[in-house]
């Protein structure tokens, strides 16, 4: 015995429990999490993607991580500067004087300053990574403390290093 009225009612109830497609807010095509924004995640089924940079609020560990990469790239340029110094030294007094004149110029001192700052930062931040690699300090308060400590150390060490050079009269503007 069929009771189409009841079956129809049940079906409607079930359907109303699930949000109908049309009732969903219109998807923002630029921020649809299942939309493959980069074209790199061609999966057979849509899967959640890790959040992209633009949906993160800034926090200190993120800044420290970005600075670690930036300082690493900066040290790459610094290595070219050091190699130029060594080659000028190997090429003889005239070549060395030309390099020293550049190194003592405003641009040269700015490059050396940035190089030293990148070096102090990458040193401290590398230590932070080595501590993490042992499985320590991975909780949020410790990670934040290490990130701040790294940034503060780099700033203090860089200023102290250059203050020492100027105070001893090794460098002058």
């Amino acid at each position: 015995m069929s009771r189409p009225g009841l079956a129809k009612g049940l079906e409607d109830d079930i359907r109303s429990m699930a949000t109908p497609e049309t009732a969903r807010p219109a998807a923002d095509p630029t921020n649809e999490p299942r939309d493959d924004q980069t074209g790199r995640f061609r999966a057979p089924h849509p899967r959640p993607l890790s959040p992209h940079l633009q949906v993160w609020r800034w926090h200190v560990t993120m800044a420290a991580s970005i600075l670690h990469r930036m300082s690493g790239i900066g040290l790459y340029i610094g290595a070219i500067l050091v190699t130029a110094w060594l080659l000028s030294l190997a090429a003889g007094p005239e070549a060395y004087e030309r390099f020293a004149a550049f190194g003592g110029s405003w641009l040269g001192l700015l490059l050396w300053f940035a190089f030293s700052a990148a070096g102090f930062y990458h040193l401290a931040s590398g230590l932070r990574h080595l501590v993490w690699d042992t499985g320590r300090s991975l909780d949020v308060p410790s990670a934040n403390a290490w990130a701040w400590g790294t940034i503060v150390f780099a700033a203090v060490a860089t200023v102290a290093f250059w203050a020492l050079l100027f105070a001893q009269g090794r460098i002058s503007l």
Partner: protein
Amino acid sequence: MSRIDAARVRVPKAAGHGAGTWIKERVEAIALIPLSLWAFWAAAHLAGAGYQAMVEWLRQPLNAVLLALFVLISVDHMRLGLRVVVEDYIHRPGNKAALLLLNLFVCGLIGALALFAILKVALSGPANTLFGA
């Protein structure tokens, strides 16, 4: 074959040396801690010094050896570091391969030039300065 064994077979694995690069980068990082502290100390000592003072400094065997170590380990650490940066941000296969090659060649060139310059200066002095003889 148990379900776990079957799962192990399906999971793509590195061909036995997956952790090698990672460990190498860390070993270099550990070596670079004392070497970079020494380099800062040396830089503070050498800043503003003239040609003759620099050459005499580099003719000291300890300075030449430490600087060569610092440069060579740094250059390889740079290569590994920038390789990760390229692999993370550059996805077009041609660009990626070109940048990885450029990274390798630039790091190799920096290392070779710096090592040559160190050796040229360090070994160019009077023979009796070698090993303090």
